[in-house]
């Protein structure tokens, strides 16, 4: 389906009929893909569409069942990353393969050193040259462990370029970056493609794809659905190609996500939840204004690993019927905050009140009984992978699903089936939950929490790694809960998600809340600055 533009140079990489299956699961079903030198070619697709598998095949990490790979017009066999590197292909994965105690130079040359002496001075010069080519300032002698995530990613790219690569695969490179770093990355990519580097860019984020790429290939269920020049496709069209159906109203790229219907529901629901005096005001001010605080966090402090506390006197309130968004680059205390609220960490100081009751340092079970719903970012830390969907759905609340010492199988079954139907979970009751896709696993978590109708919900990175359809579903459920009067604390690194859902925003930096904004005052630029530790 993809063909090089007429008259263009030989494609940097050409994939023909790549097939790969895991057992009965067909992951790549005859994929054809052409990457031209000097282009950023985006690979767009839902989770499980086969993007990562395809790239792993190209980089020699996975062996295909069939198909051919050609580099600059010549067929090649790639059975290991060594082969890929030899053919000028480099890859930067989401999980960096860096040795933290080593310097930038050492990391970069690590994969190419043989036996005997290493000429570190020459290597250092090489690295400095490569950095100059990338157009980024990076200290070749800096220890990698002390670098920011964005800088570490630059080291990974340097590593790839050091091997004289002509094709660079970037697997969701922006997932870990602050907005400023994303801009820097895009600047370097433009510079590099101008020199003839071909970039394969995997992403979920439509606006990034439209910003950086010149062509987009959309992968769905292991097949390339279409390859189009980016300029010819609107984000909405791309999203439709990706999920195979027109997407509905809730889209992350649309700034005001709350539809009128949602607002109407919220406005109607508000009087029931609160004091009923604010009926006529806009839902946003209603939500943030008059109702009782449900979740109150006061001066929460958690010791960190070093001298600085991980959480430093954090105070916030969430009222009924509002979503408070917590923005911040990961590692600034969000995880600790969520851990304390979920009952996984006992704080050193400070209090947590839920519906007026002091629940500081309570066990998970007590918190759940007190009316808290918990959806932390680590899904595998909240469900037991080896157990089935139905077992996970009752695990939090086993006392209610047993008769004497025995499990009440009938009630467990009907409970699970009801939730599977209501939340449209694409799985059998008895499937091991570890075999579910991220979206379905998140739906199971959501189902487990919402089935108890919690007064407050703590939710972190709810759509990370989810495809557009699943993310939209999660967003809609959260908005429904807000409309029904739940107090929701939403911790996210996805600014669009925060801007789309939250009534108020707070920004965490270095364990402290450094900014509080109403949704109307918040812009990505302002949040980005706060997240990077600059005063807004």
């Amino acid at each position, binding site marked *: 389906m993809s063909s090089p533009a007429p008259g263009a140079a030989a494609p940097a990489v050409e994939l023909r009929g790549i097939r790969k299956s895991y057992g009965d699961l067909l992951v790549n079903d005859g994929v054809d893909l052409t990457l031209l030198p000097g282009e950023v070619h985006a690979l767009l697709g839902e989770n499980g569409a086969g993007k990562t598998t395809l790239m792993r095949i190209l980089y020699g990490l996975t062996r295909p069942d069939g198909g051919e790979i050609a580099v600059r017009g010549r067929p090649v066999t790639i059975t290991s990353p060594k082969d890929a590197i030899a053919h000028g292909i480099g890859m930067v994965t989401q999980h960096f393969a860096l040795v933290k105690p080593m310097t930038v130079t050492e990391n970069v040359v690590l994969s190419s050193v043989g036996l005997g002496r290493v000429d570190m001075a020459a290597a250092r010069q090489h690295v400095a040259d490569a950095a100059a080519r990338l157009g980024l300032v990076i200290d070749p002698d800096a220890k990698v462990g002390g670098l920011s995530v964005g800088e570490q990613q630059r080291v990974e790219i340097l590593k790839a370029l050091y091997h004289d690569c002509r094709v660079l695969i970037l697997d969701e490179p922006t997932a870990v970056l602050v907005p400023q770093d994303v801009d820097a990355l895009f600047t370097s990519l433009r510079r590099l493609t101008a020199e003839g580097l071909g970039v394969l860019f995997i992403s979920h984020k439509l606006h990034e794809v439209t910003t950086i790429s010149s062509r987009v290939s959309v992968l769905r269920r292991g097949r390339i659905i279409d390859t189009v020049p980016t300029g010819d496709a609107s984000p909405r069209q791309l999203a439709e190609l990706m999920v195979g159906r027109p997407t509905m109203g809730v889209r992350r790229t649309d700034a005001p996500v709350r539809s009128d219907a949602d607002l109407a529901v919220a406005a109607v629901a508000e009087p029931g939840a609160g004091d009923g005096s604010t009926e006529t005001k806009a839902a946003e001010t209603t939500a943030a204004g008059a109702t009782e605080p449900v979740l109150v966090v006061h001066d929460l402090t958690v010791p960190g690993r070093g001298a600085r506390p991980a959480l430093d006197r954090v105070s916030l309130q969430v009222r009924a019927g509002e979503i408070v968004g917590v923005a911040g680059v990961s590692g600034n205390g969000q995880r600790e905050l969520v851990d304390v609220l979920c009952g996984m960490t006992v704080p050193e100081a400070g209090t947590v009140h839920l519906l007026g009751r002091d629940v500081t340092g309570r066990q998970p079970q007590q918190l*759940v009984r007190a009316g808290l719903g918990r959806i932390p970012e680590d899904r595998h830390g909240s469900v037991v992978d080896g157990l089935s969907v139905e077992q996970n759905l009752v695990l939090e609340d086993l006392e209610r699903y047993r008769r004497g*010492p025995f499990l009440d199988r009938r009630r467990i079954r009907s409970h699970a089936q009801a939730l599977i139907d209501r939340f449209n979970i694409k799985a059998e009751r008895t499937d091991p939950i570890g075999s579910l896709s991220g979206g379905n696993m998140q739906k199971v978590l959501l189902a487990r929490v919402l089935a108890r109708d919690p007064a407050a919900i703590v939710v972190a990175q709810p759509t990370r790694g989810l495809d557009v359809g699943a993310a939209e579903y999660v967003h809609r459920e959260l908005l429904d809960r807000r409309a029904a009067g739940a107090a929701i604390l939403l911790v996210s690194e996805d600014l669009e998600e925060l801007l789309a859902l939250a009534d108020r925003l707070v920004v965490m930096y270095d364990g402290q809340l450094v900014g509080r904004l109403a949704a109307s005052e918040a812009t990505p630029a302002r949040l980005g600055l706060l997240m990077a530790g600059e005063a807004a």
Partner: protein
Amino acid sequence: MRFVLRGHEPRWLAPALVLGAVVLTYALTAGPIRAAGSNPVAAYQRYVIAPLTSFSSFGEVLLASTPLVFTGLAVAIAFRCGFWNIGADGQFIVGAIAATFFALNFPDLPGAVAIPLSLVAGALVGALWALVPALLRTRYRIDEVVTTLLLNPVALLLLQGLLNGPWRNPSSGFPESQTFASGYRFPHVIPGTRVDLGFAVALVIALGLWVVLSHTAVGLRMRAVGLSPNASRFNGIAVERTLLRSALVSGAVAGLGGVSQVCGLRGQLTTEISAGFGYTGIVVATLAALTAGGVVLVAVLLADVVVGSESAARVLQLPPQMGKVVTAVLLLTVVSLLVLRRYRIVLRHPSKAPTAPTAPDGDQRAAAPISAGGGR
């Protein structure tokens, strides 16, 4: 030849693999058996088939399997919960010591009192032996693999100390206890065989373990803790308490194994009372995929070869060590073949494999010799 991940495992596969392992073991051990001067077919018939052909010899198999069922279950209980109890051997020994204490000091008790007393004492002391490592693990996060393992020689030295000291047999002078009074001897439960109460107790525990693991809330919590302690904690399960309890039950079951050996087959305490049953129990439990039914089956299979090797030594004059060779090969082949439960072998891919069309690019491959290391 390549390994491909299976989508679904057919039901017949596991039994077929065990059968295949038996056949493969025959093929691999035929040479050594011939070298030892015997006909492999006859020897194999002795090792595997003969013990199962008569009622009384099958009874011997069940009798020999009894300690392995106990230790296998003990290990399975602990491992299911993520408590890596390598100390079943020590717990087995102290269980035997506990029963012997009562048998030597209160020899006149009637069976109705003596047998329950021995069982309870053995279970308690076995649990006590597991308590210290369990507490160290749950309170101070000290690795139980090390502590349970290191308590095994402590139990063994205690056993040897007792048998060389206060409990030395006064009539024979050997380091072994007096034979137990009749009140302490387990009754036989299958007429015409020597299968005793111990096997029945082991079966009841196996049944109990199956019920607990697959039908109760406690079992679900145990499995959850074993599969993911973090997620279990998140779900409000008391991880430490669950760990501690399964460690204690594990120790108790191993202790019962010791009781069943001194009150059953042996009828006295000897320095060889355990014969490494605790360690073999790890193998049994692992091969059984930590399931109760599997433990019984694997224990019987191993006991089959143990009984068979005795008769092979007697009838065919094969060295008794040959039985151990056969057992070892059998274990290795079973472990190897069980890989096929998760993978299937594809000898050659039906259509164009990426290797097939590489012929025309030979010249370019030569230009990049580094890529030749693919090992295909």
